[in-house]
């Protein structure tokens, strides 16, 4: 028996900031103090507060140490774990109260107070490489219940009643999808999981795989039982090495415990699961392309119908859901459809995980009930925008989504509201932008991404996105005309209506939504040849104010391209032909004499 558990985050974020070295040092320090049989070190998945990593939580006190360094470990061991004196200077500042000596619970901090964890409930709590810890948190109970007490029809009805909708972006009712696949007769059916997660900025699926891989295995087995499938495939990108390794460990353990394989729980139900690695092409997140890729072909989409529920993997009926969708399933089975349906809004039930990034203090993963407003996520949970800057817009749904401008910050977020304001849920990436962000530049950034990722099979997407990108580029260079703007809008609708798959059909969304809410910025670029946010390099000039310049020569020495001319104690001048507008001189100038406009 261990009297204390030290949980160290082993997610990708904290691993890259050195959590493995912390675990190693911790273990050797514990040994040195003879505590190795009293204190257990657990490498968990992501806690969500990635901005403060590496993160460490000590139970039973529930102390939350943030930004821990290897050098801090001896102190934590000898003071806290041996003598019981909490090392206050290393605690997450929000958990330390200035008035009292009490340490606040993590659940009372702004970041966690409004969160409600369903899909992420075990992330950061259990050791993902130990199946018994998952079982200790009621893991595989739902599978047991389904196999021994419920018919496949009852399982599907339960998922339908819960109102669970696809968390990968589309928002299609999961129970309905399952019922289609169940209704189709075939000698073999498949359950597949989309863990390709290609949206820039989204990483909730990765975190679930890293922090709680067994939940996916359990849910896919339940889906297999519901539709009558005995095999499943998880399509995960090879760029997620930690997730792939832990999922493989989890699958091996589940097989060893007889929770995958033949005759599970003695009920005669057989189910096994396999991993297929993707090379990281964005288009492979599209369901038909994903299945083509699993089959061993080049990952290109095909027209629908037939839908996967009719003709999916290897031509057989297939259910394909995203990781986060599956992560909700065991809880729905155990706690009931009503419990799940009690959270969220009328048409969007349950919770949603958002990967919050961009210009925000608490970068990380948050799980909130559907219907939470953007303001609550950004200002309360996210801790607001650093540097006192003003909130300008948030991009949801990545390159397929759109932006939500500041005046809509109080919109309750659910599938339908986001569509109504011209964005979409997407997989849940939420990129926060402040007043220093140029909306035209953002649209161009996402278009550049889709141009790269377009598979090239259909012309509207392959050629259309490229032309669209060129038009945006022209605007940011200040050489576009108002006629170009009209043409660009027309091209957007053309691409949307004529592309083969979701990638092309949604690619113009960032342009359309920024045009809808920030047309004035486009006009400023085109008519006034000016970038209001001061981002587009071609529309700015770096100039030295002669009255403020002391002629110290610092800027001239800093300039990487030798664009600043002048002699000592004489005001300097920027040679506009050479200047690359990098801004290095502005940072160096001690007199605030250099400006960008």
């Amino acid at each position: 028996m261990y009297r204390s558990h030290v949980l160290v985050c082993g997610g990708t974020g904290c691993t890259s900031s050195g959590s493995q070295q912390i675990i190693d040092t911790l273990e050797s320090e514990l040994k040195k103090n003879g505590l190795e049989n009293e204190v257990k070190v657990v490498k968990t998945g992501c806690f969500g507060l990635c901005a403060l990593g590496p993160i460490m939580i000590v139970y039973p006190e529930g102390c939350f140490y943030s930004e821990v360094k290897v050098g801090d470990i001896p102190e934590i061991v000898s003071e806290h774990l041996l003598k019981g004196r909490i090392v206050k200077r290393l605690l997450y500042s929000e958990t330390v109260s200035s008035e009292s000596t009490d340490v606040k619970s993590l659940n009372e901090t702004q970041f966690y107070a409004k969160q409600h964890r369903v899909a992420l409930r075990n992330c950061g709590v259990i050791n993902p490489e130990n199946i018994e810890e998952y079982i200790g948190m009621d893991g595989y109970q739902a599978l047991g219940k389904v196999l021994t007490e419920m018919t496949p029809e009852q399982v599907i009805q339960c998922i339908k009643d819960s109102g669970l909708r696809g968390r990968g972006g589309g928002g299609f009712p999961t129970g309905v999808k399952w019922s289609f696949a169940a209704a189709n007769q075939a000698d073999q059916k498949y359950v597949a999981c989309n863990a390709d997660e290609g949206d820039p900025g989204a990483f909730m699926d990765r975190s679930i795989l890293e922090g709680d891989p067994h939940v996916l295995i359990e849910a896919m087995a339940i889906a297999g039982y519901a539709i009558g499938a005995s095999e499943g495939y998880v399509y995960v990108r090879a760029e997620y090495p930690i997730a792939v390794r832990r999922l493989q460990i989890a699958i091996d353990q589940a097989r060893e415990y007889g929770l995958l394989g033949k005759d599970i729980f003695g009920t005669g139900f057989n189910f096994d699961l396999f991993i297929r690695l993707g090379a990281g092409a964005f288009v492979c997140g599209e369901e038909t392309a994903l299945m083509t890729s699993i089959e061993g072909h080049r990952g290109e989409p095909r027209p629908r119908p037939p839908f996967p529920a009719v003709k999916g993997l290897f031509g057989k009926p297939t259910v394909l859901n995203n990781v986060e969708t599956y992560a909700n399933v065991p809880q729905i089975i155990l706690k009931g459809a009503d419990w799940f349906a009690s959270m969220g809004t009328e048409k969007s039930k349950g919770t949603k995980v958002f990967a919050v990034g961009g210009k925000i203090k608490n970068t990380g993963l948050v799980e909130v009930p559907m219907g939470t407003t953007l303001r609550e996520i950004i200002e309360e949970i996210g801790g607001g925008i650093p540097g006192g800057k003003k909130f300008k817009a948030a991009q949801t749904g990545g390159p397929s989504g759109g932006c939500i401008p500041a005046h809509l910050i109080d919109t309750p977020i659910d599938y339908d509201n986001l569509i109504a304001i011209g964005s979409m849920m997407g997989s849940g990436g939420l990129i926060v932008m402040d007043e220093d962000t140029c909306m035209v530049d953002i649209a161009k950034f996402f278009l550049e991404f889709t141009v790269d990722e377009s598979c090239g099979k259909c012309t509207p997407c392959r050629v259309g996105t490229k032309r669209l990108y060129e038009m945006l580029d022209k605007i940011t260079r200040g050489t576009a005309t108002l006629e170009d703007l009209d043409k660009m809008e027309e091209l957007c609708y053309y691409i949307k209506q004529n592309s083969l798959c979701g990638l092309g059909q949604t690619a113009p969304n960032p342009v359309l939504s920024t045009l809808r809410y920030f047309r004035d910025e486009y006009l400023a670029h085109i008519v006034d040849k000016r970038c209001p946010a001061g981002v587009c390099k071609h529309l700015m000039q770096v100039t030295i104010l002669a009255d403020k310049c002391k002629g110290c020569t610092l800027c001239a020495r800093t300039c990487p391209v030798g664009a600043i001319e002048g002699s000592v104690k004489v005001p300097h001048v920027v040679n506009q032909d050479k200047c690359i507008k990098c801004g290095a001189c502005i940072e160096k100038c001690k007199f605030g004499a250099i400006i960008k406009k």
Partner: protein
Amino acid sequence: MKSLEELKAIRDKMKGSVILREENGDNIRVVVGMATCGIAAGARPVLAAFTEEVAKRHLTNVTVTQTGCIGICQYEPVVEVFEANGTKTTYIKMTPDKVARIVTDHLVNGNAVKEYTIGNL
């Protein structure tokens, strides 16, 4: 896994372990003074004895933890028991031999062992 019973057995075995990570305000807290004075007076074996005894009896509602010096160094090793209703019992000059009785009488049956407490000086 051939039966649900097997699964339940693993769950019950693990429950005692992972429950430590749930912040549960209703738990009885056994706090052992582990400052330099406590350690010098032999608090380590006392702490270990509590951990073992609690584990042996599968007391999932008990948290064993440690704290710094509370100022009565001459009575170390000091162990304080905090119950959910707010009562605090202070045991002094603890030894590993006394632990089993405190666990049975106090933690399980709710009767503080008077003769080991500070009030019995």
